[in-house]
């Protein structure tokens, strides 16, 4: 019944984003979020796209760059206890395919949002700020960096 489920991965968090079908699931869930927001009758197209972009970046920041450690016990005596999920991906190896995918997807969403908001000034400011907040932590120079001592322990 449980044939093939045993793995010797010390920290499964490091390879969950390399799993089969997870990138497709990610794209589909962003699409579903967008559809839900489009169904709200009093939002205009620009507002819907900006909201999609902002909510996507906010959730990504919370899940990848804020929450630390693992929800399960690991046999490595808590090596990743102070690391965010982004820092745990592939045990800290930079520029792997998951990291590239997750860096490019907010940029793609930003380009689509800029187009559909017709490059309006207010929307531009909000979307650019949101994009920067989710792109900067992904830079290799920011690996393990905690600004102003926030989220350190």
């Amino acid at each position, binding site marked *: 019944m449980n044939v093939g489920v045993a793995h010797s991965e010390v920290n499964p968090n490091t390879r969950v984003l390399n799993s089969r079908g997870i990138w497709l699931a990610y794209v589909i869930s962003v699409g579903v979020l967008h559809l839900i927001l489009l169904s709200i009758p009093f939002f205009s197209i620009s507002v819907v796209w900006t909201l999609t972009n902002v909510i996507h970046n906010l959730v990504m920041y919370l899940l990848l760059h804020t929450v630390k450690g693992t929800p399960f*016990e690991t*046999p490595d*005596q*808590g*090596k990743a*206890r*102070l690391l965010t999920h982004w820092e745990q991906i592939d045990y800290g190896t930079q520029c792997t395919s998951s990291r590239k995918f997750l860096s490019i997807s907010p940029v793609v969403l930003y380009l689509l949002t800029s187009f559909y908001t017709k490059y309006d000034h207010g929307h531009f400011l909000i979307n650019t700020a949101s994009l920067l907040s989710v792109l900067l932590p992904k830079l290799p120079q920011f690996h393990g960096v905690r600004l102003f001592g926030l989220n*350190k*322990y």
Partner: protein
Amino acid sequence: PPTHIITVNGKECVNFASFNFLGLLDNEKVKSAAQASLKKYGVGTCGPRGFYGTFDVHLELEERLAKFMRTEEAIIYSYGFATIASAIPAYSKRGDIVFVDEAACFAIQKGLQASRSNIKLFKHNDMADLERLLKEQEAEDQKNPRKARVTRRFIVVEGLYMNTGDICPLPELIKLKYKYKVRIFLEESLSFGVLGEHGRGVTEHFGINIDDIDLISANMENSLASIGGFCCGRSFIIDHQRLSGQGYCFSASLPPLLAAAAIEALNIMEDNPDIFRTLRDKCEQIHKALQG
């Protein structure tokens, strides 16, 4: 098995080189219980506790030990050294702080090494030194309260030290525990079945409530005339080791004949509580005679 009289080069000598404190290693009842279990189960269990290696004798021994030590739950390990060496890293991880006595036994040292925690050694049985270390840690905690909130602190002591033969000052340790909010892990390998009116160890010896100690770990290889070890304490604490105790999950379970021998030894200990009185009297007698 070697008894208290041993023949060396044809001469009959008293055997001081054994941990068989209660003489149960040669006891007929223990031997016959082991042999009956051997006929029933065979020798080995061919599996860890989680994969078809749990027998009724294991569960019975755990229940009996928990009842004897008056705690909620007990867990059995199949090798005495691995007991404390698995228990410490199950709770203490990187970044946690462990205050341990300098004269801690080798098993504790290996457990601490496996835990990757920060180790602070205090001088043997020196409560003033321990308090100094605790105060220093408290000062550091006040400088960095956010780090302190995620750091776990433990004190690891032995009831009767293997390396020096001293008893730890448990009442003072309990006071320090509640003053500085540290958890106590007590290693009772030599004191189980030796100290205390009914053999319950150093907590009974000092008259301390067993709930004040967070984890008691002991060897069954000394007074209990078996092999292996056990940990006992609150269910909340002991249950964690069923998945995180490396020596529990990833080793074959205790052979049932040894578990049956331990149960029989426990029966003898419970039925004849005067053997502890005899043991203590004999120890004092020998101590006085050897002092000259």
